[in-house]
Every structure is written in structure tokens, then in C-alpha cells.
């Protein structure tokens, strides 16, 4: 069974803390994504990666960075967490031609910044 695993389901962090959200996929997919989900806004793409050490900005990259040192692992980093980054974060992966292929999602990480 295909699997995208997000290591932390629920996190509470303080303003200004550095936050790491980790994601691992076991499908040998080239593409990996980080989305943010907010009520009424749907999913918004933060960053994506199409290969190891390669990354591209999505629609809302400000305040975030990513790291992809291994094919199966894609990390989202909040350099200095702020309250407006309280949200649900979804990691996903897909085969190379994501247009016609399914995107596989993890279960999400709920982040609260206080």
C-alpha cells in the first residue's frame, strides 16, 4: 500500500521558534510537495521538489523553506514561527508526470503557534 507519512500529527510551538515538519514517502516518487490547508481557502502550494536537492517555490513560500537530501524525505522548515502560520500542513508525493497522475497525501500535521 502506498504511503506518505508525516511524523508529527499535532504540534504546538511558540512564536519565534524554528519548526521542522518531516515527511517520508515509500513509493519512490520523484515529486514531493508541501501544501497548507486553511478553511475556505482550500490547499495552497508552499514548495515542491522534483528531485533530490531540487526545489521550487509554490504560491505561498514566504516564511518557509524546505530540504530534500534524500529522495524519500521532504522537510518543511518554519525559520521563525508566527501565529499566522497556525494551520494544517499536508505533504504529498507523485510520479514525474503529475498532470495525469494521482497525488498521494499524508494525513496532515496540525500546527498551532502560540
Amino acid at each position, binding site marked *: 500500500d502506498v504511503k*506518505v507519512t508525516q511524523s508529527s500529527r499535532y504540534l504546538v510551538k511558540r512564536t519565534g521558534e524554528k519548526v521542522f515538519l518531516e515527511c517520508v514517502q515509500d513509493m519512490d516518487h520523484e*515529486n514531493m510537495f508541501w*501544501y497548507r490547508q486553511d478553511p*475556505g*481557502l*482550500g*490547499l495552497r*502550494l508552499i514548495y*515542491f521538489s*522534483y528531485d533530490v536537492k531540487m526545489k*521550487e517555490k*509554490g*504560491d505561498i513560500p514566504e516564511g518557509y523553506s524546505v530540504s530534500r537530501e534524500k529522495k524519500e524525505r521532504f522537510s518543511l522548515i518554519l525559520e521563525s514561527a508566527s501565529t499566522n502560520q497556525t494551520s494544517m500542513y*499536508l505533504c*504529498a508525493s507523485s510520479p*514525474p*508526470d*503529475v*498532470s*495525469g*497522475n*494521482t*497525488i498521494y*497525501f*499524508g*494525513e*496532515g500535521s496540525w500546527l498551532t503557534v502560540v
Partner: protein
Amino acid sequence: AQSVTQLDSQVPVFEEAPVELRCNYSSSVSVYLFWYVQYPNQGLQLLLKYLSGSTLVKGINGFEAEFNKSQTSFHLRKPSVHISDTAEYFCAVSRVGTGGFKTIFGAGTRLFVKA
């Protein structure tokens, strides 16, 4: 650029009634179309997708959707819903032939099935 509009933010319906969740998109080029479902406290999973061919697409759990190019719509339907269909449903669009790194998602429609 593409965009996706889900016309209803919430849809309440009684069990065993039919339901339609509406989705319109805009794009100047050919696109692929998707519906994803998110059950409470879970990630999204694919319900169905339209790539080419027959405009009526059947998915999991008895759902189907019809691609209407002239109306730029991709509405999701089920003839008889169950309590277990309570979830959030997302319509998504992806440009054909781009490598598709950016799939655009709608804002979501919450389906509430009442007993």
C-alpha cells in the same frame, strides 16, 4: 492560468438522497480534472479523475463526475449517499503537458449527510 471554483461551501443532505457537488474551472489550455475526498482528520485521497475519452468518469464509493467542456464544469454526483460520505470534497485542475507540478485545488465543499 487555471482556476477552480467550487460553487457550494457546504451541502447538507439526508441519507439515501442524491447529491451533486458543483465545480467550474477556467483555463485557456487543455486540462486534467480531479476530485479528491478528505475524511475527518485524514489527508486527501483520489476519488476520480478525467484525463481524456469518455466524459462520464466513475470513481470509488459510487461517485461519478461528468466533464462538460462547453460549460467548463466537472460536477460530482452520487445517486444515494451514506452517512460515511460525510467529508470534504476538493475539485482540482492540472494543465496537460506541463509536467504538472502545480495542481490547482478548489476551496472545498463540505458534505454533511444526515440520518
